Structure formats: structure tokens, C-alpha cells
């Protein structure tokens, strides 16, 4: 007998029959007819809604002279991200800013929602973090192919053409390790922090988890930032850049 979250049960009551109907048409098999949407997907939906509402609210009335509070906050965050991305990627960094900003906001909100009682963070599930990592992997490879065409494969061959048979397996392994490490880093941080808070609640209920929760707010922010920073670094690595004169 499983004990589910209240919000997850509500969402399953509302959207459950639609999912079951779609799966019958498509031909998928659902394990438990009464609970088709898993916990983390329900909270993912909630976070998508919250994120969309936040973005919409901040842009309701654009005004240059006296901006509203939310518009000011979002502009500060956006410009801050823009500065960081320009220092990492270069002058044409601002083109990749919307993707990274929304990815950063999304991951931060989903990390920190685990600390609110009654919620579970979607990033404590490997499926969510692996999805984000795969998106980043596909994104930077597609950008590499778009910008340099087939010459993008020169990245894999190393500095000299004769070293290519040695360098290609090394480069492929290191490229495949990137989304893996992105996914596992975020998952291990958030899942481990949830587990430790759980253990501390068992030890001494209202007192002991407090300092750990303060630390968790910090690490949620830092992990979201590290994820986005690494994605920016991978993109700047895939773009064509001239060699500097030594």
C-alpha cells in the first residue's frame, strides 16, 4: 500500500482518466489504473504552471519609467544571466540566453519545491534530471552542427590528423560522460539531501532538520547554477572559435 502526496492524488483524480483513455488508444499498458501519473510528474506539472504564471505576471505591464516589482526582479536576473553568458560564450552569447534562463529557473524551482511540506521535488527522480541532461546534450550538438556543418566532427579528431584513431574514442567517451555527469550530479544532490532530511526528521523531528534545510536552499541554488553554467560551457566549446596566436 503506497502513501501518496495530497496534491498528486488530486491531479490524478482530475487528469487520470484522460491519461488512461489515451493509453488505451495508443496501446500502452499502465500498471495501476487508479494512479497513472507518478508523483514527480504531478509536481512537474505544478512547477510548469507556477513558472508560466510567474513569467506571465512579470510581463503584464511593461513600463520603462516605473517598472513593477516583478518586472524589476526578472530584469535584474535576466541581465545578470546575460552578463555571465557573454563572459562565457562571447559576443553572440545573448542568442542562447532564453533557453538557459528558463532552464535555470525551472531547475531552481523544482529543486527548492522539495523543501516545502507536502511537495516533492521532481529533480529527486533520475528521469527528470536525465531528461534535462539529454536536452542539453542534443542542444549543444545541434548548435555545433548548425554553426560549422560537417567540420564539427573535427572537434573529435584532436589537434593532429594522425592522432585521430587514438583521439576519437577518448573524445566520444568524454562527450558521453557529460550528460551522464550532469544528470547524476543534480539527482544525487537533491535526492541525497531529501534522504538526509528524512533521516534527521526520524532522529529529532522539528529541531534537527532546520540547519540542513537552510543549507539545502543554498545547495539547490548552487546546483541549478552549476547545471546551467556547464551547459553554457559545452555550447561555447561546440562553437567555432579562431585559434589565438601563442
Amino acid at each position: 500500500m503506497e502513501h501518496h502526496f495530497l496534491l498528486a492524488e488530486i491531479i490524478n483524480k482530475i487528469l487520470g482518466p484522460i491519461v488512461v483513455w489515451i493509453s488505451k488508444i495508443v496501446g500502452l499498458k499502465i500498471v495501476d489504473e487508479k494512479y497513472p501519473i507518478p508523483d514527480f510528474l504531478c509536481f512537474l506539472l505544478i512547477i510548469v504552471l507556477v513558472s508560466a504564471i510567474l513569467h506571465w505576471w512579470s510581463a503584464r505591464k511593461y513600463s520603462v519609467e516605473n517598472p513593477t516589482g516583478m518586472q524589476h526582479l526578472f530584469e535584474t536576473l535576466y541581465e545578470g544571466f546575460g552578463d555571465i553568458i557573454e563572459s562565457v560564450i562571447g559576443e553572440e552569447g545573448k542568442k542562447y540566453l532564453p533557453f538557459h534562463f528558463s532552464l535555470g529557473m525551472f531547475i531552481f524551482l523544482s529543486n527548492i519545491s522539495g523543501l516545502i511540506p507536502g511537495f516533492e521535488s521532481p529533480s529527486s527522480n533520475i528521469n527528470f534530471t536525465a531528461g534535462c541532461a539529454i536536452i542539453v546534450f542534443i542542444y549543444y550538438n545541434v548548435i555545433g552542427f548548425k554553426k560549422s556543418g560537417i567540420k564539427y566532427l573535427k572537434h573529435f579528431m584532436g589537434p593532429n590528423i594522425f592522432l585521430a584513431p587514438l583521439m576519437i574514442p577518448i573524445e566520444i567517451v568524454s562527450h558521453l560522460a557529460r550528460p551522464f555527469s550532469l544528470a547524476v550530479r543534480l539527482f544525487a544532490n537533491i535526492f541525497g539531501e531529501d534522504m538526509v532530511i528524512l533521516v534527521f526528521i526520524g532522529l529529532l523531528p522539528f529541531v534537527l532538520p532546520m540547519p540542513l534545510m537552510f543549507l539545502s536552499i543554498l545547495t539547490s541554488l548552487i546546483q541549478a547554477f552549476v547545471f546551467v553554467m556547464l551547459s553554457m560551457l559545452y555550447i561555447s566549446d561546440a562553437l567555432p572559435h579562431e585559434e589565438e596566436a601563442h
Partner: protein
Amino acid sequence: MRKRILSVVFVLILISIMGLPIFAAEATPSASQNGGISQGLGYLAAGLGMAIAAALCGLGQAKAIASACEGVSRNPGSEKAIRFFLILGLAFIESLVLYTFLIVIIKI
């Protein structure tokens, strides 16, 4: 008016804290359910592996923090940049020990 809203929110949060047992995760199958020497060896390996990972992580982070402090003391104007690099570097080093923690938590 604002104080009233804050106090209502505070009481709601307190009530939801009472339902914290909802956080309990499902039991995942561990390495050896039968007990005996293989389970004992599993626990021993977990503790030893975690200890080695944490010790080396501590060494690595100590070196990073020491360099950051020295860098700031030599050039107090670069405090912002050094703080940025420090936090980034610490997060990377910490993620390595978290990989080991993940194996311990999920498999044991």
C-alpha cells in the same frame, strides 16, 4: 492586515509540517536481503568507501578554499570573481563525493 495574513500562512505551514511522514520513500531492494556475511561485507564496503570519498573531498576543498583566501588577500578588488570561482569549484568537488553517497543510499 499583513500581520494577519502572515500568521495564517504560518499556521498553515505548521499544520502541513504535521503531515511530514508523507515524505517516506518506498523501500528499494537492497544488495542482499538474506543477511549473513554478504550483507555485513556490504555495509563494511559502504562505510569504507564513503569514508575515503569524504576524506579526499575534504582535502580537495581545503586546497580550493585556501587558494581562494590567499587570492582575495593578495588582491582585495577581485573578491567577486574569486567568490564565484570558489563556489563553482566547491560544487564540482562535492558532486564527486555525492556519486559515492548515491551508491550507498540506493544500494544499501
